[in-house]
């Protein structure tokens, strides 16, 4: 009772669109390609059921018009009982084969004549498969673990028209821990590759159609926990770049509408999808104004002491002798309709700095000693001297290093020239 019973459910999505190039029979060659494909799928389905007696199976066919379950059939229980052993074959296999063939036949007979402009609606089939898996999750007995995966076998190409449905399906699969495997018979499928990458499945474009069953058995039959131990085709590099809505080009940097999330490759004032009107990008309107005012103010008040007001505010350093001049800027602020609050803050700041006039002094004398007006700095003195010596040391080090480098380079060049001469 300790270990949980694990069941694996495989849903095969089988693309039967008659316009697939790979399935169309070539007249001068022997063999029916579609029949070959159906045989391979049936054999694969049976071998999945053969791995463990608890394994479950579902098969969905998909074409341009509709998607349908062909296994399990509409009357599950009864037909299994009626399946009698034939040629010593396991009853379940007979049943699977008979159901798949019978239902496939009825699907094909009832389908409309093919329209080559329409593509297979695989996303819908995936959605059905996920609903089926969800039902099995709900119905499973307590204590059982269901590993579900979806395998799509398709020979059609993919286009962006189903993009949203595909993405919904892929993310749902990721959330439900369902793995999506893709076996492509013909084309490279960029969108479905993304699905494999998101859900953690395998993507394989088979190189040889004749060996379909072998590829299926070797690559897609092992359950996901076993796959780690096998040497399988390496994960493909998936291109997740977005294509813009305006030109359908792949872009690296784009603009996204904040309302409807449409992607554009360049700035446009109106969103073409939701008709929202955007503000034109640019510097904020308040910023340059402020700068201008300040510049004007400084020129009027003190042409020699630029930036000092800002520095006073930011660095909290007092500059002796300039405090009377600050009353001028205050007036300027008033005149230029600046808010009273800033002036008030400036005055407070000024008084505050008058108090600690000496403590905050910074001098730039040559030998790093404090200036004449500085307070007693006994504790700092010892720490300042080593700084200068450290600088000296560092400079020496750099000098030595540089000369060493130069010497080694010249050595190297000499060696090289002598080598060449020897030759």
């Amino acid at each position: 009772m300790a270990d949980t019973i694990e069941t694996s459910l495989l849903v095969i999505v089988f693309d039967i669109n008659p316009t697939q190039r790979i399935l169309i029979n070539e007249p001068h060659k022997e063999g029916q390609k579609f029949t070959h494909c159906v045989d391979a799928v049936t054999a694969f389905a049976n071998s999945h059921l053969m791995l463990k007696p608890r394994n479950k199976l579902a098969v969905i066919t998909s074409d341009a018009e509709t998607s349908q379950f062909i296994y399990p059939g509409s009357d599950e229980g009864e037909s299994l009982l009626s399946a009698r052993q034939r040629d010593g074959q396991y009853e379940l296999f007979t049943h699977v084969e008979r159901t798949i063939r019978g239902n496939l036949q009825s699907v094909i007979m009832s389908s409309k004549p093919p329209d080559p402009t329409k593509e297979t609606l695989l996303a819908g089939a995936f959605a059905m498969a996920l609903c089926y898996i969800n039902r099995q999750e709900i119905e499973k007995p307590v204590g059982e673990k269901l590993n579900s995966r979806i395998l799509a076998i398709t020979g059609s190409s993919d286009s962006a028209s189903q993009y949203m449905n595909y993405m919904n399906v892929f993310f749902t699969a990721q959330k439900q821990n369902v793995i999506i495997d893709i076996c492509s018979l013909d084309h490279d499928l960029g969108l479905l590759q993304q699905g494999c990458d998101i859900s953690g499945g395998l993507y394989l474009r088979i190189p040889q159609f004749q060996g379909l069953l072998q590829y299926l058995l070797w690559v897609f039959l092992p359950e996901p926990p076993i796959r780690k131990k096998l040497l399988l085709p390496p994960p493909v590099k998936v291109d997740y770049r977005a294509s813009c809505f305006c030109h359908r080009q792949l872009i690296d940097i784009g603009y996204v509408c904040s309302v409807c999330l449409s992607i554009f490759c360049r700035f446009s004032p109106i969103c073409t999808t939701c008709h929202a009107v955007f503000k034109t990008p640019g510097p904020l309107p308040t910023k340059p104004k402020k700068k201008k005012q300040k510049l004007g103010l400084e020129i009027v008040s003190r042409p020699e002491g630029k930036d000092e007001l800002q520095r006073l505010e930011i660095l909290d350093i007092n500059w002796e002798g300039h405090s009377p001049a600050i009353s001028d800027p205050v007036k300027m602020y008033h005149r230029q309709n600046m808010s009273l609050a800033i002036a008030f803050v400036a005055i407070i700041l000024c008084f505050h700095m008058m108090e600690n006039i000496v403590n905050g002094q910074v001098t730039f004398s040559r030998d790093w000693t404090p200036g004449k007006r500085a307070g007693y700095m006994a504790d700092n003195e010892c720490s300042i001297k080593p700084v200068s010596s450290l600088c000296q040391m560092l400079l020496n080090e750099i000098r030595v290093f540089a000369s060493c480098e130069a010497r080694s380079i010249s050595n190297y060049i000499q060696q090289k020239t002598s080598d060449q001469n020897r030759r």
Partner: protein
Amino acid sequence: MSDAAAAAAAEEEDGKEYRWETGYEKTWEAIREDEDGMLEGAVAEMVQRAKRRRLAALSASAGHVRLGMMRHVCLVVDCSDAMLDQDLKPTRHICATKLLEGFIDEFFDQNPIGQLGVVVTRNKRAEQASVLGGNAQKHVAAVRAHLARPEYCSGEPSLQNALQLALASLRTLPPHASREVVVLLASLTTCDPGDITATIQSLKESGVRVSVIGVAAEVRVCTQLCRETGGSYSVALDDRHLRDLLKEHVLPPPALTSRAAADEAALVKMGFPHSTGAQQAHLSICLCHLDSSGGGEVTGGANGGSGAADGGDCKLRAGGYFCPQCRSNYCQLPAECRVCGLTLISAPHLARSYHHLFPVRAFTQLPAAERHHSSACFACRKSLVTSAAADKFVYECEKCHQVFCLDCDLFIHDTLHTCPGCTVDQRTFQQLSS
């Protein structure tokens, strides 16, 4: 005076009278016996109705409402000693931690381009547990580090401090972002340094939408707070209800109408880095884990150690996602480039958010007894004819007229966001895509 009168009037308009003011409810009368004298059917029906309640509410609000898609949510979590009460099992803080973890995961699943921040309040103070960002693990860790420890939860909360801290982080955002605060409040009291109505006003002016989920009981100041800022206020009855209430905040809310709509829309510049394989890329350190190793080095230096990085997270590696503007490396998306400030996302993340904009229309409920529809659920092949009393109804999509069972109905609307019937039919599919 007029303010008070207006507030009183607004309260009247709410039309919500308290439970104790209503007439006596005879809850048992809702359950009726069927012809055979069985109760099963009635009970099953009630369960079913409860399941679909959220969907019904969803379809009622459907319509072309502009949603705040770029969500920036500040989650305020009360870590006061009121969190240690045992009315939610086992205790409030353990229950809340579990539910918040679920909420954070769900939030990023549904809003991959959204951002979340966590503020905790306790001992009359508020502190930022994690800054606004898109990394779910970081927020879950922050919630776990603060809320999960019973010894951490102490003192009184301060709603005003928490709101101000949240506002400080939300105020600087660009105008197109939707700003929200979700408060999980367990305490019935708050210890504030000043006038909270002024804070509410400033929140309102900055266009922040505040929603409160109470765990204890309804508090008037919260009612006012939510009404003023356009949020929702609800009090959880039990853990399930609390989970449902949190879940309501997973979906993006309609954009606030108070701000001019024209101001809000903006084209946001975003980068779509393509992951480079390990073969051709050069080695680099990813910038998203730079700070964790930096912290390790600082502490190592303080201990007098060699300052070795705490390993694990920060490694030189090839591959990753490179910012298309400045080529800095990130190991996961979505992220905001630390160097040039570009928002980096991948196209599927945007696509993940589209379903909020194009939701699946609610299905119509039909009695199962009517035999004009097919005998099995279209999506999962569950038989609709021979099922138990629980499935008295089936659900039909208005577009493709396919019939679904209850479970599929819920699954399609909650998780899948795609109607299988519409997507497999070429006719309806072309309507969808056009």
